[in-house]
């Protein structure tokens, strides 16, 4: 098996637990978009044009509420600002790729593709084919997102009157997978402080609109971690 193929499959495999949580999420989006009055075509194509779960929910909802286009577009921008952090975080690992690869991988850069990829990159270090890992994770997520959207659109009537789906906590697979990814990274005081401070701020600032709490929390965790690490390294030189 070629190295490229091997890395692609590893990325896709790392994505599987996340897909379990994403599938119902995509179905709910599809059903909600139809209920909000979008055409089947628009509801389906939004999943590949925007390809960003929470902003698709927001867009469907705001369109339904007849919000001015400029406000919706601005809201999408704010909800998706966190992707700049992922872009910055992955950038050093992708810097030698061609522009075509950079465009393709940027298009596929979601929360769920970012998480397993950066964890893999920080662990495995630099090697030639590692962008195939992100491609494998990102593509499998993209594929499942399109399929689950279509299923949601088709089953819209069934989904909106069904309580069984709500009783099965499949959505909990997402935080669980993120737990499995983040815990092994917590190897020193700075990492632990970064995670705990970000988590605390995320809870306290959760009521802020447009995922601003998430961005505030992430920035807090990044600053706390960096400061603690600098303190430690400057301390050791004394």
């Amino acid at each position: 098996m070629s190295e490229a193929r091997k890395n692609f499959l590893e990325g896709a495999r790392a994505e599987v637990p996340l897909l379990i949580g994403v599938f119902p999420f995509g179905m709910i989006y599809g059903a909600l978009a139809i209920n909000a009055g979008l055409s089947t075509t628009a509801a389906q194509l939004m999943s590949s044009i925007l390809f960003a779960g929470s902003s698709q929910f927001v867009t469907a909802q705001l369109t339904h509420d007849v919000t001015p286009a400029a406000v919706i577009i601005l809201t999408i921008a704010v909800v998706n600002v966190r992707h700049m952090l992922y872009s910055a975080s992955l950038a050093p690992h992708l810097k030698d790729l061609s522009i075509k690869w950079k465009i393709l991988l940027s298009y596929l850069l979601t929360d769920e593709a970012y998480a397993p990829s950066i964890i893999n990159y920080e662990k495995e270090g630099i090697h030639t084919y590692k962008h195939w890992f992100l491609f494998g994770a990102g593509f499998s997520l993209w594929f499942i997102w399109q399929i689950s959207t279509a299923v949601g659109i088709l089953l819209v009537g069934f989904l909106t009157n069904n309580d069984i789906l709500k009783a099965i906590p499949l959505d909990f697979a997402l935080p669980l997978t993120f737990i499995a990814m983040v815990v092994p990274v917590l190897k020193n005081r700075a990492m632990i402080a970064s995670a705990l401070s970000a988590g605390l701020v995320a809870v306290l600032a959760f009521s802020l609109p447009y995922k601003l709490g998430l961005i505030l929390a992430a920035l807090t965790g990044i600053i706390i971690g960096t400061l603690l690490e600098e303190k430690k390294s400057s301390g050791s030189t004394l």
Partner: protein
Amino acid sequence: MNIWLIMIAGGLITFGMRFSLIYLFGRFEVPETMRRALHYVPPAVLSAIIFPELFFQNGSIALTLANTRLIAGLAAILVAWFSKSTLLTIIAGMVVLLLLQLL
């Protein structure tokens, strides 16, 4: 028509943000502090996603034993810590959550 304008503009902006630093990174020297700071993006972002999922129940903070997701999440954190296995962590969290929901 309006929805298409919204989707295309929103899509372009979203792509632009995803592409921004991946594109710029190779083009200028990145300060050492920023390089170091980027290592904290994964723990910070992932924790910022995880914590509200565990601590909130029906829209408000619930620090009680009745918060099944918090208990299941803590169990998953313990299993992740000792096993370092994604599969075991997810199974443990799911099993604990399902058991607590049955009680």
